[in-house]
């Protein structure tokens, strides 16, 4: 069983925060196939949060095929996220380390690196990135 | 709703009934000791009896005012003051019904309490009231303003009126202390205004014109600065005399003429006996009568006690109805 928390200063919609926390827990191997998520009422009681928000988060997870609700029993995890991508982590990290070293050599301090990363991440993450940009 | 009304008013209601019970107990103990015989009853009264008689009048006069101030005025005003009306009126009972039940039950309880109190006081004073109706005495008749509204059924109507008056003022002012003070002031004003301006006309008074003679004239009043005396006739037993005036031949009210003042021997000096003055006075009165002067008496006869009681009760119940209508109308706009 996992425990949710909410950050009201993040600007991320509360339901998205719940979805992200479930995904994260699955990626990190904290939640496995067959595990039960807390009931809507439990989450509401723990966080003083709107029940519709929790239901919406669970519906979203269900749509993504990560969990399944069983009437009167609860919501259960149906997949394991960690397995597929875990293998790709290592080579990616090695490339990132190389890139960071290159950035430092170019004279970027930590804040500049962070700003550059965040800006690029946002620009590509929104689907705007094209092969041209990379080239 | 009945439960809530009772729960909220039980302390005041209990106090009211305890006070009534205490009064009734005092009256029950002292009542049987009063002399019962009609003749010379006032000579047999002790100062304590007289004090009790007047205390009884004051208690019955004040009781409706207290009901209005302490049960009526805070009924809605305190809710508005504390904001609890928002709790009361958001339950499944309309505020019209809320007020109807609270006002109705309190009116019943207060009317019953004051009714019992009045009954006890009336019973206690019955020998004195009866004597006053038959013979002249030192205590006023029960038809006079001194005791009329503290006997019979009017105190009950006064109580209902005072209660509704308090409620209406409370709704308008929304402050219980201010409403309490204004209720007391207005009610006292009504208590004074009623015998002065309204009660004499509830039933058209009887007018009686009497020939002026030694037999009919009961007294001659001399006033300090005024050389002209006033004549007084003997009214019917137990009547409430509204005016006692000298009128001339055309029926206009006039002062006693100068001719009488010249003729009049004046009040007997300490060294004179009444019998020495009387023959001369008799002549003066006969002259006055011959000149066409009469004495006009306007009064409510003793037999009108109950008709007047009913009329006054009707007036106050009608006023209560109007105020209650206003309260319900105003409550929807609070």
């Amino acid at each position, binding site marked *: 069983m996992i425990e949710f928390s909410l950050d009201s200063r993040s600007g991320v919609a509360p*339901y998205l925060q719940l979805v992200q926390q479930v995904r994260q827990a699955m990626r990190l191997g904290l939640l496995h196939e067959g595990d039960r998520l807390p009931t809507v009422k439990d989450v509401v009681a723990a966080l*003083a949060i709107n029940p519709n928000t929790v239901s919406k988060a669970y519906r979203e997870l269900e749509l993504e095929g990560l969990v399944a609700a069983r009437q009167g029993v609860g919501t259960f995890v149906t997949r394991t996220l960690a397995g597929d991508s875990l293998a790709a982590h290592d080579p990616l990290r090695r490339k990132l380390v190389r890139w960071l070293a290159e950035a430092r050599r170019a004279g970027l301090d930590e804040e500049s690196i962070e700003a550059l990363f965040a800006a690029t991440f946002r620009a590509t993450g929104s689907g705007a990135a094209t092969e041209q940009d990379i080239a | 709703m009945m439960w*809530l009304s009772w729960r909220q008013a039980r302390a005041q209601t209990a106090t009211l009934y305890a006070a009534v019970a205490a009064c009734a107990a005092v009256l029950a103990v002292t009542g049987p000791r009063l002399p019962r015989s009609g003749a010379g009853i006032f000579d047999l009264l002790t100062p304590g009896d007289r004090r009790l008689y007047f205390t009884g009048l004051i208690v019955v006069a004040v009781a409706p005012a207290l009901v209005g101030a302490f049960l009526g005025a805070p009924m809605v005003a305190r809710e508005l003051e504390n904001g*609890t009306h928002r*709790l009361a009126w958001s339950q499944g009972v309309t505020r019209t019904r809320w007020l109807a039940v609270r006002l109705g039950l309190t009116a019943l309880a207060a009317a019953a309490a004051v009714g019992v109190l009045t009954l006890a006081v009336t019973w206690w004073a019955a020998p004195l009231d009866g004597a006053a109706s038959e013979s002249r005495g030192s205590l006023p008749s029960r038809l006079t303003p001194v005791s009329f509204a503290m006997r019979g059924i009017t105190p009950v109507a006064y109580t209902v009126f005072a209660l509704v008056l308090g409620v209406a003022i409370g709704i308008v002012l929304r402050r219980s202390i201010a409403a309490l003070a204004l209720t007391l002031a207005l009610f006292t004003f009504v208590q004074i205004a009623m015998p002065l301006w309204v009660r004499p006309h509830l039933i058209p008074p009887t007018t009686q014109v009497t020939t002026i003679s030694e037999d009919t004239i009961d007294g001659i009043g001399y006033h300090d600065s005024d050389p002209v005396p006033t004549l007084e006739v003997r009214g019917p037993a137990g009547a409430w005399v509204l005016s006692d005036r000298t009128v001339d031949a055309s029926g206009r009210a006039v002062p006693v003429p100068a001719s009488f003042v010249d003729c009049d021997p004046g009040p007997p000096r300490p060294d004179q006996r009444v019998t020495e003055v009387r023959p001369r006075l008799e002549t003066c009165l006969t002259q006055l009568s011959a000149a066409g002067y009469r004495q006009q008496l306007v009064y409510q006869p003793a037999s009108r006690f109950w008709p007047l009681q009913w009329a006054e009760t009707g007036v106050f119940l009608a006023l209560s109805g109007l105020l209650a209508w206003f309260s319900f109308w105003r409550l929807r706009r609070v």
Partner: protein
Amino acid sequence: MTAVVSAQALGKRYRRRWALTDCTLEIPAGHVTGLVGPNGAGKTTLLNLAAGMLEPTTGTIEVCGGRPAAGPAQLAKVGYVAQDTPVYAGLSVQDHLTLGARLNPRWDAGLARARIAALGLDPAQKAGRLSGGQRAQLALTLGLAKRPELLILDEPVASLDPLARREFLQALMEAVAEDGFSVVLSSHLVADLERVCDHLLVLVDSRVRVAGDVEELLATHHRLTGPRRDPGSLPADQHVVSASSTDVQSTFVVRTDQPIHDPAWTVGRLTLEDVVLAYMSPGAAARPALEAVR
């Protein structure tokens, strides 16, 4: 969308002062709707009108399909926890429960008893001696146990300490999770409402400045920071909510359904409070109200 509260040109005047003028709005059913706005915006007056405590001076208001406080049936549908959560100081906790049971046709005595027990309140305790948090919980119990279709709460947590505030909202949300009734609650603090509300209505000077689902508001509002620019030069699909500029830099809060591509901007996320403040700021006053696109 079915509306649980709908007001048309609603106005309320106290003697000479207008507390609410020409207010037109709809509050959807099945949501926990937060009503925020500065003091004096007319929130309390609006809620008092909805609860039937006041009669409108102009316009109409319909709540759960009926005129507020029109009769016992209408009163039974709407629960109201008024500002400062009034209770009868001289009556005990148990007296309040009896009051609720006697005055409400659909009273749930079991729920009321269970809540009082869970709160650890002594039924014999006089309500006047309860703490602010306990008093608020008692008022909430009265509102919940009458089993309303709509529960209206006016600044219920304003006077409570943070712990009592949290406990109150927890209790409210648990009840909503269980029974699914609609809730309208007002606050001048967005932070109180952020978690519990899924719908938000910002009221400024009797007007709805913005209304919409909380998630949608968060997803469609962005803070753009970049070199100084005229607000008019932004793309047509970006509605400027508030704007501020220095001689070299401009900061805009914009509302748009489209992604923002312009590389000149640093795009920042906004918290709900930021969004509400942007709409409440004087610079936002000139623009007409925006209904959330649904």
